[in-house]
């Protein structure tokens, strides 16, 4: 209130004539307000408007910034040219309409405004308030406004209306938002790139393959991961040439391979390559077998700038293969040896055989004895067998039902695989004879096998008793020969078989040292 122009206008115009020329000026809206039929609104004809409304209308119209006034409990809208621009195609129908009808899409906001400012006498302030208005030919439009509402008092000193200063901030808001979004996007991108590079670095560092990057024709290390560090024994290599950092690989031809790959641009692929690698702080080089690639790396211009080194330490696999080859060779050797023994057993079983079916039974049982001795040695990983186990094996086969008729007693003695096999075969012959003709051929006889190991001599005694009276055979058979000649030779001692009337006795005596393996 109290603007000179308005006071002058009012003081200059009295009664009806003053009403006729109100409001003065006010641009397009001034004219529209003058022409508007306000009698159809709750404000009544303009001539009846109270002074407070007139003054407020003048203030609205004279303001260079967009203002709108909501008068009365219905919020009848009176606004200026600035606001008309804001209202766009909704202007001029907004003029004189109830605010809730004028802006149905903002009815919630305006109800609150009327409630707070008109009825409550308070103020409302919004900054960058988002709105969706249909101000442009019915098309929805998102916009942002700074808007401040305050009550306008009437003559009674109570709010007669609400004055709103409306500044559209959509342009600034969107620009700021775009800037903020952009900054956020940059931050996000940075974070993602950092995470990605961390991830790739961790991957590079932790991958089980060894990886390194050597730059330039001198192959200067610029990167080396954990597995590569392991391979080279933890030596510091970054910034050094391969030849400086790992001198021992030069004479092994690896730098030549790098040179060739760098010069030719062709990758070098090594499979199971042998490498002697020095350990940090250790004098002795360790043998490694590697599957690896020297991959030349080109820049955008296509020039080779370095070599990427990648591969796996396959030492264990190669050792495994070597071991397997050894095992296969050993197995092959044993199989052929076994076949040779079978050839020998066959030749000697069927030589001079008078009764073919009997010879076949003997042959079969000798092969079974050989098989059992093989099983025993396989169970001991072919490292040898104990004398007790050999005798016990024979006992189970030939006196299995009456174990108390076959006793084995003696100290622990280990025999080499070769001696164990021969002794098994000899014991088989003795036991077979006992079952056929000797102490195990009746119900009461028994076999006692005892041995002693002292003064560097092993003495084994096979003694049968309680069997039918023994008569010496007319002709010495394979069994006798095997024991007396074969076994004695094998053990480097003597073996004596005597056909005493009370029972067969076999005494074997040999130096003890040979049974422990090395002579």
């Amino acid at each position, binding site marked *: 209130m109290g603007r000179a122009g308005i006071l002058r206008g009012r003081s200059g115009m009295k009664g009806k004539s003053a009403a006729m020329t109100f409001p003065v000026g006010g641009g397009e809206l001034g004219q529209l307000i003058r022409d508007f039929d306000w009698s159809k609104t709750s404000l009544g004809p303009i001539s009846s408007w109270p002074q407070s409304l007139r003054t407020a209308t003048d203030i609205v119209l004279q303001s260079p910034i967009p203002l709108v006034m909501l008068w009365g409990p219905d919020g009848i809208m009176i606004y200026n040219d600035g606001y008309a621009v804001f209202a766009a195609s909704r202007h001029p129908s907004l003029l004189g309409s109830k605010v809730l009808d004028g802006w149905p899409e903002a009815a919630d906001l305006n109800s609150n405004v009327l409630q707070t400012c008109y009825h409550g006498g308070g103020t409302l302030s919004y900054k960058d308030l988002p709105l969706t208005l249909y101000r442009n030919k019915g098309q929805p439009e998102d916009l942002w406004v700074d808007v401040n509402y305050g009550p306008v008092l009437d003559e009674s000193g109570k709010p007669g209306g609400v004055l709103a200063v409306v500044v559209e901030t959509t342009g600034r808001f969107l620009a700021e938002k775009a800037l903020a979004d952009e900054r956020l996007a940059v931050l996000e991108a940075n974070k993602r790139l950092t995470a990605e590079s961390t991830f790739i670095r961790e991957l590079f560092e932790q991958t089980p393959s060894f990886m390194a990057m050597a730059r330039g024709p001198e192959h200067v290390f610029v990167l080396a991961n954990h597995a590569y560090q392991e391979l080279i024994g933890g030596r510091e290599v970054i910034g050094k040439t391969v030849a400086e950092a790992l001198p021992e690989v030069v004479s092994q031809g690896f730098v030549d391979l790098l040179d060739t790959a760098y010069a030719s641009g062709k990758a070098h692929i090594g499979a199971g390559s042998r490498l002697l690698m020095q350990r940090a702080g250790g004098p002795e080089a360790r043998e490694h077998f590697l599957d690896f690639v020297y991959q030349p790396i080109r820049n955008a211009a296509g020039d080779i700038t370095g070599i990427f080194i990648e591969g796996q330490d396959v030492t264990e696999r190669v050792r495994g293969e070597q071991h397997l080859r050894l095992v296969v060779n050993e197995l092959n050797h044993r199989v052929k040896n076994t076949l040779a023994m079978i050839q020998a057993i066959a030749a000697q079983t069927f030589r001079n055989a008078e009764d073919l079916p009997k010879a076949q039974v003997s042959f079969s049982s000798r092969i079974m004895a050989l098989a059992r001795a093989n099983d025993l040695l396989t169970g001991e990983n072919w490292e040898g067998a104990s004398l007790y186990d050999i005798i016990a094996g024979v006992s189970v086969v030939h006196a299995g039902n009456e174990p108390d008729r076959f006793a084995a007693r003696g100290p622990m003695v280990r025999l080499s695989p070769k001696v164990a096999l*021969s002794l098994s075969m000899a014991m088989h012959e003795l036991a077979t004879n006992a079952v056929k003709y000797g102490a195990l051929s009746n119900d009461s006889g028994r076999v006692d096998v005892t041995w002693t190991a002292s003064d560097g001599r092993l003495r084994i005694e096979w003694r049968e008793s309680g069997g039918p009276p023994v008569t010496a055979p007319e002709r010495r058979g394979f069994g006798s020969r095997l024991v007396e000649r074969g076994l004695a*030779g094998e053990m480097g001692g003597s073996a004596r078989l005597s056909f005493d009337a009370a029972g067969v006795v076999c005494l074997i005596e040999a130096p003890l040292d040979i049974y422990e393996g090395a002579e």
Partner: protein
Amino acid sequence: MANPLRIFVVEDEMMIAMLLEDMLADLGHRVAGVAMRLPQALEMAKATEADIAILDINLDGRKSFPVAGVLRDKGVKLIFASGYGSPGLEEPFLDEIILKKPFEPDDIRLALARAAG
């Protein structure tokens, strides 16, 4: 065989030694001795009178060349039996006759004929 030969056998496998003995006897020759272990073979090589020796190269992991040396010095002709997976001949025996295992009587007959000249 018109001419019985005296043959010394060095073979560490008991069964194969016995097989050789039988085969040699069947061929009409006389076995002058059988040794199965290196120390025993060395001793017997010095004492035994033989025309030809059949030696297994590998005697339970040891090579029989020292025995071969003693025998050759005595003028005994040599036949080496090569075992399975065992090492080959070495100097100065590279040109000696090899009898490959497993062998049949005919293989022995031919090897003996070559050795006897």
